[in-house]
């Protein structure tokens, strides 16, 4: 039987990995759309995406808790489709994390797409490359660093989540009990030794992740010269 803290680590990594994957899948087209959008409604969508940056996590958690309950439509639809309650489930904390970490993925990607512009994409079209082809052969290689940054920030921010998860996930071991909540439990129980282990692990893990991102984004030494 694994220790409760190890179980919390597994839940945290599973949640963060799944959240990051979903964020990349929905954040990429959203960021692309925002980068190319010229309508005045762009600012409204941008504001909605950025809202989690300024909103207290408990506010988002509170409204999600209400929406996920079986008394409200999203919760009802989920229950009809899966036969299980959404609130206080692993799925709920993943959905909450996706919403809460959305700006950390969308904003770096949007900025990268805006900086890339249309000129190279037009050049690709002139050589017979369709939109999907252009994305994978031009956009992705040229914005690789921004994708790494977006994924890392999304992952790290999800690992560090507390308020939203506490509101919509509760504290169910093996299901919704993540590292930040386990740490809070240890502090509440005055078990500072175990709290220290978790805190220092999260601190070092986050440092390593961010240092890796900055290392990857360092300007590359150019090699080879034109003859």
């Amino acid at each position: 039987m694994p220790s409760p803290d190890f179980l919390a680590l597994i839940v945290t990594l599973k949640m963060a990995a799944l959240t990051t994957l979903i964020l990349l899948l929905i954040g990429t087209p959203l960021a692309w759309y925002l980068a190319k959008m010229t309508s005045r409604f762009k600012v409204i969508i941008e504001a909605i995406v950025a809202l989690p940056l300024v909103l207290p996590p408990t506010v988002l958690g509170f409204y999600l808790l209400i929406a996920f309950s079986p008394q409200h439509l999203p919760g009802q639809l989920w229950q009809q489709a899966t036969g299980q309650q959404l609130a206080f489930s692993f799925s709920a904390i993943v959905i909450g994390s996706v919403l809460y970490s959305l700006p950390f993925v969308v904003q770096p990607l949007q900025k990268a797409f805006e900086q890339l512009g249309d000129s190279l994409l037009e050049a690709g079209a002139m050589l017979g490359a369709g939109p999907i082809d252009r994305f994978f052969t031009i956009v992705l290689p040229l914005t690789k660093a921004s994708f790494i940054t977006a994924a890392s920030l999304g992952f790290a921010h999800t690992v560090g989540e507390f308020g939203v998860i506490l509101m919509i996930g509760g504290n169910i071991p093996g299901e919704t009990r993540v590292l930040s909540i386990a740490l809070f439990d240890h502090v509440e129980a005055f078990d500072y030794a175990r709290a220290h282990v978790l805190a220092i692990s999260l601190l070092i893990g986050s440092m390593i992740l961010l240092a890796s991102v900055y290392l990857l984004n360092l300007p590359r030494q150019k090699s080879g010269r034109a003859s």
Partner: protein
Amino acid sequence: MPTLKLDFNLSYKVFDFSINQTLDLTGITGIFGHSGSGKSTLLRAIAGLEKNISGSIIFDNDTLINTTQKTFKKAEQRHISLAFQNSRLFPHLNVLDNLKYAAKRCTNSQLNINEILTLTELDNLTGANVGELSSGQKQRVALARALLSEPKLLLLDEPLSALDQTSKTKLLRLIIKVQQQLNLPILYVSHSLDELQQVCDNMLILSEGKVIDYGNIHHTIHQLNFLSASLPSEQLIHQQTSLSLPISNTDNGKGLMVLTLAEQEILLPRSSEELSIDQHLRCFILASDISICLSEPQNSTIVNQLSGTISTIESSEFDDSTHSVLVTVICSGQAFYVHISTYSQQKLALYINQHVYLQFKAGAVRTFLY
């Protein structure tokens, strides 16, 4: 011969473009106009990069766009390639990979990359990072890349604008060579009449989003001599005589080359390039470089003296302050354009059908390529 039927309008906040013209796509067709005339807009529309078009574009019986029939062929499906002014090479790929990018997407590949590398003189640069190429090298790679997509029509948008004179000459020769070897119709946009005069067979002139003239290159350049007076002042061009004449002697022993104009001759400085007898040489003479004499000049250092007859004397009806006239003189069937002051015109009492002599120095006969 393929044709390109253009009948569309395009509106922006500060610019309206409108065209109804059929182009015969033989050899190289120049598109001339000054900044803001709509040259690049026209190319982008043909390439499929302009979405707000109202009207139709038909290339060789293939409808690229027809807004009444709601037909729009995407840029990547048109088999038309556009080489941009700023080359737009992919920075994450080296020279060879930029070329392979085009070759891989060509559905019916006939050309060999190595042949194109040789044709565009890029054999030694295949592994080079595109960020480290000179402007001329970048444009050659862009041209090679466009060729490897094997388009049915190649569009060149000011390909020489960022180059020095030597690189311009090299690339112009390359464009002529490519066109001749691949028999590929080319639309060549430039705001430099000198470039277009050297390479184009036909020319379309645009001004403020409208077609001013279209036809044979020499004819349109000569028409421009008269049109330039009615164009906005910033669009004034150098009035000139555009010629394509056979070489009768590449070196007369005195450092001069000789061109034949029926029974008369035109002398110009010998070229360092290898030219052959009877090869036609494109050259031009600015109207301000030619003078008129009423009697045959004797004892003059000016080597070119042609006899002819005045056919027209045109003054600028839009600007009296220039105090000048454009005189057309026909010498052995060829029109020459001479820009002189009204003072000189009155002093010599020039009139239509008068027999006169033209004088110009050998150095006034200009070529861009040789």
